[in-house]
């Protein structure tokens, strides 16, 4: 059971490093698995490709999902995760630089648990990550096995 995994789906290496630093800064010591495109994220979550044989029911505690991704975009990842019985209840937080209301609406209607805009300011970003961590890693009760 590796319930303390955070799956970070992010194609920008700067944002990846900043997010990991922000997690560390908030003493969030979970293992961070990074997927650099939508396909890699789906492979991990659904146990396909390089992750064939991974116990799919061993869900990450939370997925931090960027929207603009190579190969399969974030919204499509979200839809496929929600469509699969095994990952249907997985907490997914959309973490994006988009300022479009439309993206927020689409994210929620595709089943995002929350939607966070990346602030430019690192202190604010750290604070956003802290709140996310507090909620999704400490307070939120996730069904251990989704069925």
């Amino acid at each position, binding site marked *: 059971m590796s319930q303390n995994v955070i799956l970070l789906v992010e194609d920008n290496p*700067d*944002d990846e490093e*900043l997010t990991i*630093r922000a997690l560390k800064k908030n003493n969030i010591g979970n293992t961070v698995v990074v997927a650099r495109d939508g396909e890699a994220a789906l492979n991990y979550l659904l146990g396909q490709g390089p992750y064939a044989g991974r116990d799919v029911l061993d869900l990450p505690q939370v997925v931090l999902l960027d929207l603009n991704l190579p190969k399969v975009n974030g919204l499509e990842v979200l839809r496929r995760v929600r469509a699969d019985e095994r990952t249907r209840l997985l907490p997914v937080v959309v973490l994006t*630089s988009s*300022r479009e209301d439309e993206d927020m609406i689409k994210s929620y209607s595709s089943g995002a648990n929350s939607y966070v805009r990346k602030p*430019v*300011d*690192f202190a604010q*970003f750290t604070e956003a990550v802290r709140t996310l961590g507090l909620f999704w890693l400490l307070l939120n009760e996730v069904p251990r096995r989704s069925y």
Partner: protein
Amino acid sequence: MILAIHVPTAILELLEGEGLPIVRAASADTPADLMITASLETLLQLRGRAELDTTPIALLGAFDPQAAARPLVEMIPVHPAEELVWRLRKSLNSILAVRHLQEQLKVATQELDSLIYAVSHDVRAPVRAIAGFSEILQSEHALGLNQDARHCLERVCSSTARLSAMLEDLLSLSRLLRHEQKLQEIDVSGLVRQIAESFQAQEPDRQVEVTVQDGLAWRADLRLTRILWENLLSNAWKFTAPQAQARIWVEMQGSEYVVRDNGVGFDMRYADRLFTPFQRMHGAEFPGRGVGLAMVGRILSSLGGSIRAEASPAQGASFFFSLP
């Protein structure tokens, strides 16, 4: 296409024989590039319909000063026949040329807007990285840096913050007119008072007397109307800050709306730059990045209106605008 309403059959046959794209109709129920009629009464009726405001009309065979005074009305004699045909063809060609240019302009403006949007959106990612890593340097490695290095780093941080704020402004500007506009009746007096109250609530220590004429109202998009008035008022609010008793007036003078204040004013020599983004009349003593009036200008031009300002240093400023 030329829509012909109440035109004698002999003239219609002549024009059709010359190959002009005539559509005979009893009323203006299809959109046309140009409408023609031989009846003054019909012309006045058509010109009275708001949805036909932008369609040119030619009155054939009559001259009437009342009709001539209306916009987009042309009078064409029916004799000699060659002149009628020639003038109609010429009118139609100019109308189509203008329409074509308008379409091109619209496409170009949309492309420019998407470009501004894409640039300001995509540039945010590297800016966020610069901001993030320099903040980490500042907060975690400040002890390893000498005083000069810390100073340079501070400059990097403050410029990055400014750059990121400017990108946000550009995004807001490009987003301003991308929404579909919904027309509704708006109680402008009430809206302006409400905005003034919210400013007062944010700065309870300021003494500002806002006088709003009763009964101001118009039909427009609420979101744009609100942004328009918020920016005009916020401008007056900001530049009256040094006054012990600040005053702002919102009223109509003739057909113009006026926002007047007794604030610091500005030098009219620079008035042409007022509505250009990031142009500021004052230095750091007043906060802001020079975007509010740019928004105002953009909203007004999209509504077909215009704005001008009158001011002199230390004498307050007045903004006059009109809507069609």
